[in-house]
């Protein structure tokens, strides 16, 4: 079975069946299967700007998926089956990029004719033909540098080998990649690269997954002719996340280009020249970016490696599990590398529509928090105030007794940031059966309504935000709240010169953005059309608004959201072919919680917490001790002894995301599942199972005994949560159908939703690496 979570981009966009243009295939597979593929997957794909779209898949993240079977997309890869018509039409937004037959040329690679788009490089042509070209400096998501010279190929009628990554393919070019000239040229390049590269593979963390090591197996010699000393380079301090051994650097400049083009921090540069050339910051400076860990992945050698996992494991010892990140609401696709019961590192997985191939530093490095502060046995607070270990039976019985003693009106349940949909489903069912309707998910606020799905999702989709040409950010620090979404917006600014206006706390977003003010008056004046940015939005072709879920914590949130609705209507943000209304969630649990209706019911009291006598916390830690009444019975079910555990009367140990199969929905409404990578600790149990067992003791037995049973229940409540790896877009309702809002805007400024990016949830708060990052990168 093909790995279910992978979404590979097509090597070239296929013309939509509805577009009327001749169906055209670029596939090296024969024409009959190409024709079939045209029928099977008619979704057209927006071509990313320039040559940056991904023509090839290779390298260390994508093991098990060789480029050869990637090119069989005609039969093997579809875009995830049935799509909503809106997605297809939104993809057509990029129709201007669509390759037409007249935009194509034919070249021959090793005697095989391939059809490629104009403007592709020789290297990309070779990839279309299924020929792997060795490379160090070329990276499909970065600008072309052409400085490593490893990708030399022979082109007929040229006197010298050409660097294929930097040479545009021309019609009729005859490219040869297997000739003795090519071999000799690459061997020469390799010999030069190895002149200054230390022979420290045995102590290098990149060993086993090093591009230089791999390629020297093909092009390297068993001895060198260079008898002088190798040079040595001063190591740079890039902070607690990225370890540098600059002597190993081969000056491919990928990290420099990543920093300036993707992360947007202009800190790294190429210093010096010739043999003295080195990568550095010149002045002593840390690389402060939420995406800085990605330089570790793009570094082809061991110059940049992960500091937290230095010298801990070899790549071949690790078991890889494909999973989903829960540190924010983006749902980045990750690979958890584990050895035995220990998570050794976390790497990104390719998913063009979610995280491309990047993940945030918190997703990558917070894993050491999984080993600290863990709850591994049920605990009950004894009469003397100490927590004492007890059996599961006794713990559950205590909880059930306490719950049954309390009037349902005086009960409340809060789902934490990292809760999976299954546990939330079970908890909602349990609480509802006990008569309690006072439920909310952390981050959503206590009185959120979940009636309109389009109001709490990133409707443009994460990838679709790249197409916007004017964007208004309301009450959000996007770089901190959702670094990968910020990166998409940054792409729009870079590629489409999108204009970005910010109403909210002033933050460096790493791209050009106009700070319009941090108060509701600005928002009101945009809504009234008085503010110049209102014109910018209404003139834009694909206007968008990004609202941070920090506004949910405001007392005038309805007025704010109404103002945003007005702006979106005035600027025509929601149309049939484009929905630019985006609500960015903060936490992994929020979207699924809203979809499942994990919100206060109509009879629930809201606001005053002093009446609560029984509080069920499903990994929820945001309440301060003052929020919880002294006489309340607090149940804490979670995996970390975090803030709320200190207040708990009973602690039920649950499992972390790396240990369970849980469903999560990301902020654009895409359902994804984690997979268990490591066994759970101690006596901990799956969260939904704990609740199921508790329900029996409380006399309200839940009607499911298996994970599939819970999921069947989820299917009944929110069918989209059953369709894993699919994006379920929301249908926007016209404004007229919405209830009128009478609330008034308040003048208070928008607050920061996240004070410290590196510590937002129980796992990252328990992480030493994140503590070090906080110390090194804190913005105060």
């Amino acid at each position, binding site marked *: 079975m093909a790995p279910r979570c992978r979404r590979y981009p097509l090597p070239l966009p296929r013309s939509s069946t509805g577009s009327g243009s001749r169906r055209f295939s670029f596939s090296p597979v024969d024409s009959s299967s190409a024709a079939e593929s045209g029928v099977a997957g008619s979704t057209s794909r927006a071509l990313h700007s320039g040559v940056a779209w991904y023509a090839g898949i290779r390298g260390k993240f994508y093991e098990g998926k060789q480029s050869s079977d990637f090119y069989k997309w005609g039969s093997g890869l579809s875009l995830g089956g049935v799509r909503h018509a809106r997605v297809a039409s939104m993809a057509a937004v990029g129709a201007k990029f669509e390759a037409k037959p007249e935009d194509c040329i034919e070249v021959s690679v090793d005697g095989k004719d391939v059809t490629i788009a104009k403007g592709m490089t020789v290297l990309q042509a070779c990839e279309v033909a299924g020929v792997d070209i060795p490379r160090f400096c070329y990276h499909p998501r970065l600008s072309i540098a052409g400085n490593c010279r490893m990708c030399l190929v022979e082109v007929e009628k040229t006197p010298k080998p050409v660097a294929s990554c930097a040479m545009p393919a021309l019609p009729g070019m005859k490219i040869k990649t297997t000739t003795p000239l090519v071999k000799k040229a690459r061997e020469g390049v390799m010999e030069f690269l190895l002149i200054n590269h230390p022979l420290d593979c045995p102590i290098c963390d990149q060993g086993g997954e090093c591009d230089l090591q791999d390629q020297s197996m093909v092009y390297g010699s068993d001895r060198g002719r260079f008898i002088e000393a190798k*040079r040595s380079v001063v190591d740079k301090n890039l902070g607690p996340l990225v370890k540098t051994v600059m002597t190993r650097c081969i000056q491919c400049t990928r990290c420099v280009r990543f920093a300036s083009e993707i992360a947007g921090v202009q800190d790294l540069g190429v210093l010096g020249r010739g043999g003295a050339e080195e990568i550095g910051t010149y002045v002593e400076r840390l690389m402060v970016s939420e995406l800085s860990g990605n330089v570790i992945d793009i570094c082809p050698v061991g110059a940049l490696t992960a500091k937290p996992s230095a010298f801990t494991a070899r790549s071949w010892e690790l078991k890889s599990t494909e999973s989903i990140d829960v540190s924010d609401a983006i749902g980045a696709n990750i690979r958890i590398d584990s050895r035995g019961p220990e998570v050794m590192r976390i790497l990104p997985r390719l998913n063009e529509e979610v995280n491309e191939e990047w993940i945030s530093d918190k997703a990558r490095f917070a894993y050491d928090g999984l080993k600290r502060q863990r709850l591994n046995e049920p605990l009950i607070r004894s009469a003397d105030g100490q927590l004492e270990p007890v059996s599961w039976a006794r713990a559950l019985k205590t909880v059930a007794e306490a719950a049954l003693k309390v009037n349902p009106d005086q009960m409340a349940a809060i789902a934490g940031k990292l809760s999976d949909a299954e546990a939330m489903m079970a908890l909602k069912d349990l609480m509802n059966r006990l008569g309690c309707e006072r439920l909310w998910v952390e981050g959503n606020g206590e009185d959120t309504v979940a009636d309109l799905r389009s109001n709490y999702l990133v409707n443009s989709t994460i990838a679709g935000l790249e197409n916007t040409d004017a964007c208004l950010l309301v009450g959000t620090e996007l770089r901190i709240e959702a670094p990968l979404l910020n990166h998409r917006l940054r792409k729009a600014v870079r590629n489409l010169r999108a204009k970005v206006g910010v109403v909210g706390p002033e933050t460096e977003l790493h791209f050009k953005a106009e700070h319009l003010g941090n108060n509701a008056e600005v928002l009101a004046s945009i809504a009234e059309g008085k503010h110049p940015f209102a014109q910018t939005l209404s003139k834009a072709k694909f206007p968008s608004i990004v609202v941070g879920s920090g506004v949910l914590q405001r007392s005038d949130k309805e007025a704010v959201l109404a103002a945003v609705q007005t702006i979106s209507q005035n600027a025509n943000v929601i149309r049939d072919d484009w929905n630019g209304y985006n609500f960015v969630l903060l936490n992994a649990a929020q979207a699924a919680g809203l979809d499942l209706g994990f919100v206060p019911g109509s009879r629930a009291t809201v606001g005053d917490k002093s009446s609560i006598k029984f509080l069920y916390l499903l990994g929820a830690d945001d309440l301060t001790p003052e929020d919880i009444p002294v006489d309340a019975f607090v149940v804490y079910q979670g995996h970390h002894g975090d803030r709320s555990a200190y207040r708990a009367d009973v602690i039920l140990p649950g499992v972390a995301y790396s240990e369970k199969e849980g469903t999560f929905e990301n902020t654009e409404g895409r359902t994804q599942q984690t997979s268990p990578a490591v066994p759970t600790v101690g006596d901990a149990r799956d969260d939904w199972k704990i609740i199921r067992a508790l329900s029996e003791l409380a006399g309200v037995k839940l009607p499911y005994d298996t994970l599939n049973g819970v999921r069947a229940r989820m299917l009944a409540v929110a069918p989209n949560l059953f369709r894993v790896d699919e994006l379920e877009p929301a249908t926007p309702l016209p404004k007229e159908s919405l209830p009128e809002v009478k609330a008034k805007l308040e003048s208070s400024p928008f607050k920061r939703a996240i004070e410290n990016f590196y510590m937002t949830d129980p796992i990252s708060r328990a992480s030493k690496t994140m503590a070090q990052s906080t110390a090194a990168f804190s913005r105060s």
Partner: protein
Amino acid sequence: MLRQVASRGLAVLRGAAASQRTCAARVFSSSSSDLHEQIRRLGPLSREYSTALNLHRNTTDNNPEVPFEFTQANLERVKEVLSHYPKNYKQSGIIPLLDLAQQQNGGWLSISSMNKIAEIVGVAPIRVYEVATFYSMFNRQKVGTYHLLVCGTTPCMLRGSRDIEAALLKHLGVDRNEVTADGKFSVGEMECMGCCVNAPMIVVADYSNGVEGFTYNYFEDLTPERVVEIVEAYRKGEKPKHGTQNPERLNCGPAGGLTTLLGEPKPPPCRDLSAC
């Protein structure tokens, strides 16, 4: 000649060099033990580069807090330089601006001067550092009023540039890239300055008269004695005659007068235009 290993930031540790030597020797030892000896005779296998350290360390006179401003007169020049380039390509002016800043700053670029230029052309400071570290004629540490640059490229080296440098260093009592106590002289190394016909040669960058009077003078056909005389002349405030120091030579002509091409050169044979 002893290399100034210690004074160079990129020098390789001697220990590392020694182990490298053994490694290299092991590869070839199967053929001959003479080679081992040859390698040993190569001396310390360190790598030397003409550029200085690619790293800035704050000192009292070179840190981002030390203010740098272009003078009013030079601000006019800055404007003039930037007018050469389109408005959206102001970064093309980085090199001329660095040159201007270096002349104003007495021959070297402080970190704040580079930051200032980054601000003027609207790029991140690192982009300016990249340029400044690339070109060896930009000095990123203090130099003397007269910065003496010895050509170290092959023709000059074969004609004795190492001796010229040794004479200079000995006479001035400094290491390479070190400034004399009176702040007047410093010695650096340059790559080929296109004067190979009159090798060996040095260049004297003369910062004694600011931006207006800045000169960059070649002194060619040098001997260790003559180069010391030049230094002494500068010390006295004289401006020694630049160009070839060989009295028998005129510019780059042959010493002692022409030996060939003595007659009137024959005109090239012309086509018979009437033939076409």
